[in-house]
């Protein structure tokens, strides 16, 4: 089994466009969407069966029983997340700020605090005849998205055969969900964008991936919107000795294929054809690694 993770740093550069195309081109038997706080891969993936849905519970949240609370203020003083507030003599916990550490429960002299589980999202596992697809949706404003990413990947693993290529659509940024998605991955493909913002973000995600000593490759999407910056990205990769896998041109058919719910690689168009080249190079690199 090989795992290929698609990342970008900056959002909206085309991770899901590339991931859905790779899934179609490789006829992937297992894939996952790890962008749990803005998942979209399910919108361009054929699904015929209903998913197996499982609730996701993050860390527990604190609850203060007003009948037992004596208003000593200890919990509010010790909470590092400013999650406890007091109005009059009523102490309450802000569930959105509570990280579930349990310090308030520990310091309460009268045991007025208990920790209770709260649903923080839903995981969906689509088990189709030809493939298995694991995805999830974090409940609005919940924390612990990194833990949910780990669960999404874990749920897929029992259905992965030793010879499979697993394609994982990642999330933007460089924080906990990205770090969680990197674990166990064989190769990262970064979808860069030739803008100053895109280059700045690409450098930060490359740093993050290399921290984990994972082979990191780069392609450029919408490459022709600024050829000069695309040249700079290619040169940056050469300097850092990263494999550069190709340029995907700006193509209005990409938006249309997304809105039709289809991977762009299924179309004979400039972007679709360029993605095929990037795909073939990725597969070649992954095969070399197997030897």
């Amino acid at each position, binding site marked *: 089994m090989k795992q290929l993770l698609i990342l970008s740093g900056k959002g909206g550069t085309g991770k899901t466009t590339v991931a859905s195309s790779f899934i179609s081109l490789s006829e992937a038997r297992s894939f996952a969407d790890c962008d749990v706080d*803005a998942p979209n891969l399910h919108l361009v993936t054929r699904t015929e069966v209903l998913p197996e849905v499982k609730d996701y519970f993050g860390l527990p949240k604190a609850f203060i029983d007003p009948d037992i609370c004596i208003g000593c203020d200890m919990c509010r003083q010790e909470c590092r997340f400013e999650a406890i507030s007091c109005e009059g003599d009523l102490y309450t916990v802000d569930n959105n700020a509570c990280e579930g550490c349990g310090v308030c429960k520990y310091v309460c002299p009268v045991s007025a605090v208990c920790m209770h589980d709260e649903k923080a999202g839903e995981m969906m596992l689509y088990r189709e005849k030809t493939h298995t697809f694991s995805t999830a949706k974090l409940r609005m404003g919940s924390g612990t998205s990194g833990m949910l990413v780990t669960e999404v990947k874990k749920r897929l693993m029992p259905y992965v055969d030793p010879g499979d290529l697993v394609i994982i659509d990642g999330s933007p940024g460089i924080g*906990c969900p990205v*770090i969680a998605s990197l674990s166990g991955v064989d190769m990262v493909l970064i979808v860069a964008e030739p803008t100053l913002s895109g280059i700045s973000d690409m450098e930060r995600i490359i740093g993050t991936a290399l921290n984990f000593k994972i082979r990191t490759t780069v392609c450029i999407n919408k490459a022709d919107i600024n050829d000069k910056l695309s040249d700079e990205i290619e040169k940056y990769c050469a300097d850092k000795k990263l494999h550069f896998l190709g340029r995907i041109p700006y193509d209005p058919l990409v938006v249309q294929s997304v809105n039709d719910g289809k991977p762009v690689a299924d179309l004979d168009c400039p972007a679709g054809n360029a993605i095929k080249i990037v795909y073939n190079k990725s597969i070649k690199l992954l095969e070399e690694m197997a030897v």
Partner: protein
Amino acid sequence: MLISILSGKGGTGKTLVSVNMAVVSECGTYADCDVEEPNGYLFLNPVISHEEEVNVKIPVIDADLCDGCRKCIDFCNFNALAYTGNKVIVFEDICHSCGGCTLVCPRKAITEKDKSVGKFEKGMSGNTTFMSGTMKVGVASGIPIVKRILKEVHVNREEDVFIDSPPGSACIVMESIRYADYCVLVAEPTIFGRHNLEMVHELVKVFGKKYGVVLNKCTDKPNPSEDYCLKEGISILGRIPFDASLGAIASVGGIAALEDERFRAIFNSILSGIKEDPELI
């Protein structure tokens, strides 16, 4: 007035909208809370007058005092402590800095040290006050940095403050809209854009915020995000056209409102749309 700009989906134009609104507002404040991938500085080129490290507390175990009772390990809900080779090991990257281990240690063997997770910067770009945070590569959570920025924002609250939020809808986004008087949701005309707009729409409703939508990259083709706004009765603050010249300006860090009168007019009208929102008056 504190205005947060968010989108759910990345790359829809949060930074474009935030920077341009801050510039047309005259004497406003731009605060970049996308600390994992901050980009506002590329457009505003600020002169930085203040820079500071943002630190969190990380436990330090005194091996001479520790008797291996493991109460700290049992207490830690984040699994940031482990006992191997007859000593307690701290996994600094997953520690949430709750301070629980220092409280539970019966031998007072645990103290705390500062660990830098990034930096906070403040400066000026023309008449615009600039604030930004940058998380260090490899750190898991930028929330302490966002909190530091917001602390500074509160000092400037009587001015217009534009908060450039991170993508997504998780805890860090929540932090950057928590104190907002108004939320601007930026959406693009794809089914991805619409799906993520639905998610942040739910988020601003949960928080009971006033909000409106800016439709970016508009063409003459169908716009799934616009359809959603019409269906839900969400007020549309403005439409930014899909325009090659706008893309060219933004790709090299230019500010559209300063370079093209058409775009200045669009951002001015978005800003006055917010100020005149009947829900606010």
